[in-house]
């Protein structure tokens, strides 16, 4: 619209003393300016256009130690919906420390996304510590499966194969429980498909770091129920001093 007033507008000197005519402002037009060659990808990382690669997603298990107070879960889940993080599963439960709970999350994101998940989680006031688990972490999930009861023997065989338990068996349905890592659960679910799965409930993965490594950095073993003088606790305490 600035063109409208420019037609019969008298020449005017601005504060800077710069004179110009024509519509708009002075200076070379966009195409007449020098342009850099470089580019960034969607994560703001500088890229070589020749080898531009789309950032790949990976699955990460994130563990957050939180204050066990009302509203924690809604704050955490609110964060995920607001920031559009891709959450596969989320489990929550108390720890041995009074007033603490652990939230275990499985997220599927790019490296930059996982980094953000951890940092944004860490900012929430009730969150005490956040850690990402190594690939060798101990993980488990529980699934309940209700299948048709037409072939109870076969169902039983599969249940045993996956070291599961039969929780309920009726003339029409059989409900079993399987626990294990993701691969085992997925395989088991596949195996039960042949009977017709009527209903399924999965808890999502929960996990702890292997061996002496604390699951979240600097995490101390619980005080209330931990046996006194356990080697684990001694080592962690020693670790803490160096931190």
């Amino acid at each position, binding site marked *: *619209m600035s063109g409208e007033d420019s037609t019969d*507008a008298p020449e005017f000197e601005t504060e800077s003393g710069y004179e110009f005519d024509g519509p*708009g402002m002075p200076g070379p037009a966009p195409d007449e300016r020098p342009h850099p*060659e470089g580019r960034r990808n969607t994560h703001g990382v*500088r890229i070589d256009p020749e080898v531009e690669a789309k950032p790949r997603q990976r699955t990460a298990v994130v563990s957050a130690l939180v204050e066990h107070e009302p509203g924690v879960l809604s704050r955490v889940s609110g964060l995920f919906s607001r920031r559009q993080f891709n959450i596969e599963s989320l489990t929550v439960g108390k720890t041995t420390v009074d007033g603490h709970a652990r939230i275990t999350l499985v997220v599927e994101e790019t490296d930059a996304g996982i980094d953000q998940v951890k940092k944004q989680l*860490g900012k929430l006031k009730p969150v005490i510590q956040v850690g990402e688990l190594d690939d060798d972490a101990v993980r488990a999930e529980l699934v309940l499966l209700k299948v048709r009861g037409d072939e109870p023997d076969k169902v039983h065989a599969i249940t045993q194969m996956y070291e599961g338990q039969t929780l309920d068996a009726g003339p029409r349905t059989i409900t079993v429980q399987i626990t294990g890592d993701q691969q085992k659960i997925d395989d088991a679910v596949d195996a039960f498909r042949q009977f017709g799965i009527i209903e399924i409930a999965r808890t999502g993965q929960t996990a702890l770091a292997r061996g002496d490594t604390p699951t979240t950095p600097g995490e101390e073993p619980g005080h209330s129920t931990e046996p006194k003088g356990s080697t684990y606790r001694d080592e962690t305490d020693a670790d803490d001093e160096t931190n």
Partner: protein
Amino acid sequence: MSEQQPAPTEDDRADADQTADSTRTPVTTGASSAVRALENAGVETAFGVQGGAIMPIYDALYDSDIHHVTMAHEQGAAHAADAYSVVRGEPGVCLATSGPGATNLVTGIADADMDSDAVLALTGQVPSTMVGSDAFQETDTTGVTAPITKHNYFASDPDTVGDTVGEAFALAAEGRPGPTLVDLPKDTTMAETDREPGPAKAPETTTPPTEADEESVEAAARAIERAEKPLLLFGGGVVKANATEKARAFAIDNGIPVVTTMPAIGSMPEDHELCLSWAGMHGTGYANMAVTHCDLLVAVGCRFDDRLTGGVDTFAPEAEVVHVDVDEAEISKNVHADYPVVGDAKAVLDQLTEEIEQSPGVREWRQQCQTWKEEYPLAYKTPEDEPLKPQFVVEALDEATPDDTIVTTGVGQHQMWAAQFWTFTNPRTWVSSHGLGTMGYGLPAAIGAKLAAPDRDVVCVDGDGSFLMTIQELSVAVREDLDITVAVLNNEYIGMVRQWQDAFFEGRRMAAEYDWCPDFAKLAEAFGARGFSAENYDEAADAIENALAYDGPSVVDFRIHPAENVYPMVASGGANGKFALSEDQL
């Protein structure tokens, strides 16, 4: 000018506490404990609106020296508290009742959240026995405000409510500032307690680092020494951390050009040779050229908002990035940081200064930046005849007021002209709604700013549309007898929308015409303020003189050129270096 109002020293505060202790009424209820916490934190002014669920708090305020400013609308209270915090550098406080009072605060809280302004909101709530029953004026306030606060609290214990309020106050200001909220059910505030709250203290889990770790500082310092075309990018965090002096010295000692973000306007004097003003969608051509061509971008306390970066793929495409921020989650959120430095801006600038052995040799680059300044000056064409050009009005107001004048704005074209054509030389003088872009911010913000700095001139540059959104706060300015000047740049459009419609929607000006606006000068008089209007340059000069001379709130309705648009402009998501200088370049 100092960065803040002279704050009382520790000793002053201790003295005040002691004298006050003997005279202050004892804590008797949850409400008086909450108010005591505010007093302990040094709160002098609070903004709010009364109501059923918050009445116990107001009743406790009756016995307090805290100056309570009754606003016409809770949104105004939140914006006033926000502006107060920007100008003072300490948290602003606002109050509202439950339900509609609390929801009316929401826009202001969200605004403070986006701009990292320290605001403490206290909201009344229905008694906890009725929470969840859809009681009269019940809203799940902590639920509604969870995503727009640093943290919020539901205060259910009369013995600890004071400590909770103190904690919320401290948390608002700590590290990266932001809004906090305490929801106060009526039974908590009514209940008897004699518990004196302790000093305001932020929770342990939130304490950010002050100094950055040495390794990251070293790496950043080496990158700066190596750079051939380094550019400093000051964000709002520089002002928030009171690091302006340090940041200026760092730029000048090392001879590195500076661009700012909009919230950081004034952190570097805009008349300084090294200052390239602000970058982004309507930033200066030279700032955007510098961002586009630098080889090292040293960003301090900024969050790389998309109005700053344009399309992230073309943002500073050749540059390695040093990112200094107290909020670790900001690092590599939008733009990847090659050199992350987590710490308080002031502390880190000290560390960097210490660490850098030799300033980079950048004379050529500096000259290049000067060339861009000459090539792309901020300019506008002014026909001698009417109507007025808005840029001229802004320049004239700037000229007629002292250097440390505080400018507040609404949101739209007028906001951009104010930011472009006012030459800011002091921090905490530019008070605007950046991240949320809230129309109606200007007038309540001017009220908050004036109460925060009564000795300074306060000018609100507003748009006709924005002004209408919170115009009722004029009644507050009159009642409080605040010497503020509202300059309405009246184009009878919601101009920024019209500019986009003309550029991107084939000029189909749906719902953009505001020729139904009231006579603002008359309306001002109706509120008890002074009203002026100006249609040409002579009238404008007179009106500016008279409005500024009037000792009280005044409004000038500047009938500006209705077709004027804001340039330069980077198309949304476009490359900063491709800013358009007129519509036909878009």
